[in-house]
């Protein structure tokens, strides 16, 4: 039994180890994808053969506040040389925060053959594994994607509003200061500024990074995760859960943890998150 299998996850197959990746570097059926918050990291050195998917440049619509559409996803898939059969393995900085975000966006297009490299960049680097500045180029592919499906793992503000008080469980994965509203507006940073501080009524506060081990970026074991989300916060696998943060990126990490590591079947990411809710007129807010 591998270390990952021994941690008791509901879907251990969705994680691969750094060692697994090291053994699949030249595997044409596998594409390693780095996704970071910091755009400097990939060009400064990445896993040999890995391509970059950038959260701002690749995954977001350049004009509207939304994700790329089907044509955009097909273009991205072609650029990184994948087909629907390719196993894509995401990794990145910050405990795989952005890797989970990219993974989540890929799931909007049904690319189920996707995994996360446990520990991300941090673990790979700590183990002294090779990094290169050579940017690989793969032959473009023809990828036929379905239309983006926003119904299963994504939720919009109006539906969140309707669900308040119906027993839905909201998980606010921001910092405690953001949750309490102590941190309201961000001076000199209008793009992500918000007019009201606080949280969506009834939301529990579980900062996203609690699901990861800070020393090597790996995910905590299922028992440790249950202690946080179930014993401490009272969630259970049958709950309908909505995770949110500021713009929906940190909450995709929690979505990943609840969906795949603990096996919750009904978890959605509210990517409008606090930058939408805290700026919306008339919606209820709790502090």
């Amino acid at each position, binding site marked *: 039994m591998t270390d990952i299998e021994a941690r008791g996850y509901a879907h251990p197959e969705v994680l691969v180890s750094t060692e697994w990746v090291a053994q699949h570097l030249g595997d044409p059926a596998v594409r390693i994808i780095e996704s970071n*918050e910091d*755009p*400097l990291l990939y060009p400064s050195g990445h896993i040999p053969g890995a391509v970059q998917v950038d959260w701002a440049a690749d995954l977001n619509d350049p004009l509207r506040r939304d994700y790329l559409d089907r044509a955009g996803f097909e273009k991205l898939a072609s650029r990184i040389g994948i087909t629907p059969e390719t196993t894509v393995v995401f990794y990145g900085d910050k405990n795989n925060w952005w890797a989970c975000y990219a993974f989540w966006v890929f799931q909007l297009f049904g690319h189920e053959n996707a995994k996360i490299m446990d520990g991300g960049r941090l673990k790979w*680097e700590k183990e002294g594994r090779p990094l290169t500045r050579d940017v690989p180029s793969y032959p473009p592919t023809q990828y036929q994607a379905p239309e983006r499906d926003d119904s299963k793992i994504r939720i919009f503000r109006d539906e969140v509003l309707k669900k308040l008080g119906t027993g839905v469980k909201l998980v606010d994965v921001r910092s405690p200061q953001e949750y309490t509203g102590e941190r309201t507006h*961000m001076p000199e*940073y209008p793009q992500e500024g918000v007019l009201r501080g606080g949280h969506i009524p009834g939301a529990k506060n579980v900062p996203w990074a609690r699901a990861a081990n800070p020393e090597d970026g790996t995910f905590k074991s299922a028992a440790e995760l249950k202690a946080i989300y179930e014993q401490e916060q009272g969630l259970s696998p049958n709950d309908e859960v909505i995770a949110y943060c500021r713009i929906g990126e940190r909450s995709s990490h929690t979505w990943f943890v609840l969906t795949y590591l603990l096996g919750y079947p009904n978890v959605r990411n509210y990517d409008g998150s606090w930058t939408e809710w805290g700026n919306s007129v008339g919606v209820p807010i709790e502090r």
Partner: protein
Amino acid sequence: MAQPPKAFQQVIDDFAFADRQERIEMLIEYADRFREVPPHIAARPFPEEHHVQKCESDAYVWAEDLPDGTLKFHFAVENPQGLSAKAWAVILDETLSGQPLEEVAAVPCDSVFTVFGKEVSMGKGMGLMGIADMVTTFARQRLAARNRPA
């Protein structure tokens, strides 16, 4: 009203006209030149008063007094993946160390957004501004001490 040092303004202008790819390449070249604070200035554990608040990369800033009354800035970035913080530290050191304090104090912290682009994430933007803020604060403190009656 003092203006920021010419060398600093030159760097800002270079970034203002760079496209995304050029910007990334320039920043990596800066980050490659990063040298941590020398032991004669500070050693671990670094004192909290030199720790930049709000910086996720765990950055520290020191100001060394030079004989001509200017300052030499030193930095530490504890997050090994804190490349943006390292690049920014090198830019600040190369363009502000040894410059007149009035000019250093005039550096606007939001230059971060010209150098790193508007798409820089909020957390990173705040942290990088925090580094610049600490540098300019050191300059203002020295100026205030100089102007204080003996």
